[in-house]
């Protein structure tokens, strides 16, 4: 047996050991001992991922599976699909996760549930690594849901805060909405090909076994999952709220890894999408639009983490856009570089929050001299994000913009290039407001640099953010991203026009931000007044949340209440109505009674009782109604069955 699958098992399952230890003994061990095993296990995982990557890149990868369920009609294998894609992703996830574990020791200092936090982080790492290396849709889906669950647990980690617990539930429900489509897509493919395995499904697609309509439907349904997970329009609303979680969580889950799962999934199963050009076009439009809208919203955010959150949504839109224009390699390349510089930015923002005690950039200012390491690493991350050469973001973004130009759809080109400009602008807006000038509050006045356990990860990530793009220059290095898959022979060429345009846009974005926020040539307040209507729309986030809260959620509640009411009130009402009719009938009967027996008193008492019974809640008398409904049901079911026939 080859060493590769063993390494993969170590990489994936080491964090599970950490999870178990931290879950059961975390409380007893206390701080900081509770973090030792989880961090060490994550370190083992990160270390093992490097020879794994080397092994796979040197051609020892492949499909390693064992039979899990075999029952005739359904046979499901479990195992690892270790090709260049998954190996690069595994290494990225493991290394970033390790650095963030390390950082968390400092960040979570003093938290009462210190051990529990590391348990969840480890569980997340385990699930994410499982998602990345999955060899079939079943495994993918299981880990897909598990990372969702971890995200839910970690967003709501500080559940004493109502906003945090609400955000957790919002994230869970929103992504599950997308998962409905995802599940249907998986089942549709399963129905069409009889298999859950990637390779068998690819084979069927390649062989033209599935008609164009069905394959488009399947691709679009799968894309629904990506929309939810990777926070694309119209399900982007959960990601900014997810920032209620601890900052390391935002860095790991909501920037570097989990939110990229949608992108990764599409890249992973790209042969399916490739066979459905219509679906790809939809993907491109959604991605491009998301990139632009999110970038515009980021312009007006005043919470540093929300700036980064919208930036993440925007960058994910870029990746989705790259997939849509048929360049999964570029999407994947951007995914990896983004993982480094965005986690760097988040950890940097965490360091700022740690130092000043606020998330509002207006309450910061003048941090640069007090927090030197944080400052320069943050600027490196911002430059990488803006796409300034020779940092990592430049290469991957250029690759995307080149493909978009080649694709040639006007709206996508507008989205792509305008977003590049806006990205540079909003990042440097945030930097100038928070780091430059004078301290504006006491918190900013007394800001202090974070401990080494937090700054060392920043430095390491900054190095990666600078260098990760240079793989571009390594002969054959870019091929590392092109995967085992035979479908992805991407001929690489440099699109000089796009490259030049993107650099010019990035630099002008920075320049405009400098004019407004550093040199203050233009009065910020004046500017805001002029653009107030636009700013209002942006601050309301294009009203997505308002629409959801105002219409969908109450609508749904109303709907289920209606059904509840149907059971209680409508049927009750029908029965009451008939009771009323009975009373009418009985009135005639009552005259009869009057002549013979007791008379009016009896009648009145009876009417009162009958009406009283009508107002009484569901009590003993109602069992007759149950039985009537049983009879109605029996007749109705027979008739309904006849109608269906």
């Amino acid at each position, binding site marked *: 047996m080859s060493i590769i699958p063993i390494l993969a098992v170590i990489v994936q399952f080491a964090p599970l050991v950490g999870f178990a230890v931290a879950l059961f003994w975390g409380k007893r061990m206390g701080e900081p001992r509770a973090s030792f095993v989880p961090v060490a296990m994550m370190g083992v995982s990160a270390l093992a991922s490097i020879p794994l990557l080397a092994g796979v890149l040197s051609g020892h990868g492949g499909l390693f599976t064992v039979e899990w369920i075999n029952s005739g009609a359904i046979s499901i294998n479990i195992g690892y699909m270790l090709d260049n894609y998954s190996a690069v992703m595994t290494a990225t996830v493991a290394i970033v996760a390790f650095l963030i574990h390390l950082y968390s020791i400092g960040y979570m200092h003093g938290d009462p549930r210190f051990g529990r936090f590391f348990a969840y982080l480890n569980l997340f790492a385990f699930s994410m690594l499982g998602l990345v290396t999955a060899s079939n849709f079943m495994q993918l889906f299981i880990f897909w849901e598990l990372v969702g669950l971890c995200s839910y647990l970690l967003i709501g980690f500080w559940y004493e805060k109502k906003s945090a617990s609400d955000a957790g539930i919002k994230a869970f429900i929103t992504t599950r909405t997308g998962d409905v489509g995802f599940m249907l897509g998986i089942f549709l493919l399963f129905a069409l090909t009889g298999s859950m395995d990637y390779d068998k499904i690819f084979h069927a697609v390649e062989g033209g076994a599935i008609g164009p309509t069905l394959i488009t439907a399947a691709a679009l349904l799968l894309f629904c999952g990506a929309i939810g997970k990777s926070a694309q329009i119209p399900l982007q609303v959960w990601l900014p709220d997810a920032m209620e979680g601890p900052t390391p969580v935002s860095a790991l889950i909501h920037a570097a890894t989990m939110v990229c799962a949608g992108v990764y999934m599409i890249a992973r199963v790209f042969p399916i999408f490739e066979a459905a050009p219509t679906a790809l076009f939809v993907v491109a439009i959604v991605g491009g639009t998301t990139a632009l809208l999110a970038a515009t919203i980021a312009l007006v955010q005043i919470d540093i983490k929300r700036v980064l959150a919208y930036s993440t949504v925007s960058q994910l839109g870029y990746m989705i856009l790259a997939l849509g224009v048929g360049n999964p390699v570029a999407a994947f390349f951007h995914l990896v570089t983004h993982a480094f510089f965005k986690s760097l930015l988040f950890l940097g923002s965490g360091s700022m929050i740690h130092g000043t005690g606020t998330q509002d950039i207006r309450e910061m200012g003048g941090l640069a001299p007090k927090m030197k390491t944080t400052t320069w690493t943050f600027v490196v991350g911002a430059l990488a994000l803006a796409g300034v050469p020779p940092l990592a973001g430049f290469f991957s973004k250029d690759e995307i913009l080149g493909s978009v130009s080649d694709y040639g759809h006007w709206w996508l080109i507008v989205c792509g290039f305008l977003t590049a400009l806006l990205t540079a602008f909003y990042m440097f807006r945030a930097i100038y407001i928070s780091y430059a000038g004078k301290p504006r509050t006491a918190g900013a006045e007394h800001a202090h640099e974070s401990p080494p356990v937090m700054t060392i990860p920043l430095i390491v990530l900054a190095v990666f953010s600078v260098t990760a793009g240079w793989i571009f220059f390594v002969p054959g290095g870019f091929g590392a991203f092109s995967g085992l898959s035979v479908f992805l022979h991407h001929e690489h060429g440099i699109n000089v026009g796009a490259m030049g345009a993107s650099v010019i846009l990035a630099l002008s974005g920075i320049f405009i931000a400098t004019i407004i926020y550093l040199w203050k040539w233009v009065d910020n307040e004046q500017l805001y007044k002029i653009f107030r209507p636009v700013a209002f729309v942006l601050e309301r986030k294009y009203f997505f949340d308002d629409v959801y809260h105002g219409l969908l959620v109450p609508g749904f509640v109303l709907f289920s209440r209606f059904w509840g009411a149907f059971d209680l009130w409508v049927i009750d009402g*029908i*029965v*009451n109505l*008939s*009771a009323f*009719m*009975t009373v009418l*009938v*009985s009135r005639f*009967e009552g005259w009869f009674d009057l002549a013979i*027996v007791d008379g009016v008193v009896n009648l009145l008492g*009876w009417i009162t009782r*009958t009406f009283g*019974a*009508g107002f009484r809640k569901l009590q003993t*008398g109602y069992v*007759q*109604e149950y039985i*009537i409904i049983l*009879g*109605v049901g*029996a*007749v109705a079911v*027979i008739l309904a069955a006849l109608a269906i026939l």
Partner: protein
Amino acid sequence: MGGWIYTIAFYVCAALLVASALGVLLLRNLFHAGLSLIAALFTMAALFILLGAEFVAGIQVLIYVGAIAVLILFAVMLTQRIAEEKVKRYTRALLPGLAVALALVIVMILVTTGLTGYGFTPFATEDTVGDIGKALLSTYVLPLEVISLLLLGALVGAIVLARKEEEK
């Protein structure tokens, strides 16, 4: 034997049955309703005899009339003042109940008219009691035993639920 005698007998019995069943529903004196129930059960037994099921008819009289209906009457008489109490004839569920009953009757009529032309031919037998006895102790011996368990369980359950409070 002329079939018309059977026909007349059937319709007479059926009319009596419907009348006494209505009596159970509509009479406002519980005791009178109970008597009407006995009449209904008797006419039901007569219908069984017309169908040639003497054994079932006998059982009907013995168990339903002899045991259950009499028990009901005793309960009515022994309960203070309940015999004088006027019972209300209408419940709030009257009309829906009638509607459902009507729907079921329509469906039943459809079925019984559809039943002609197939099915099995009823087998005539001289010795109904003997045949039933044999069937109960051969083909249906297991259900018979299960019924005995059922009765035991029901008895225990009834006693547990109805017993007096234990003093501790």
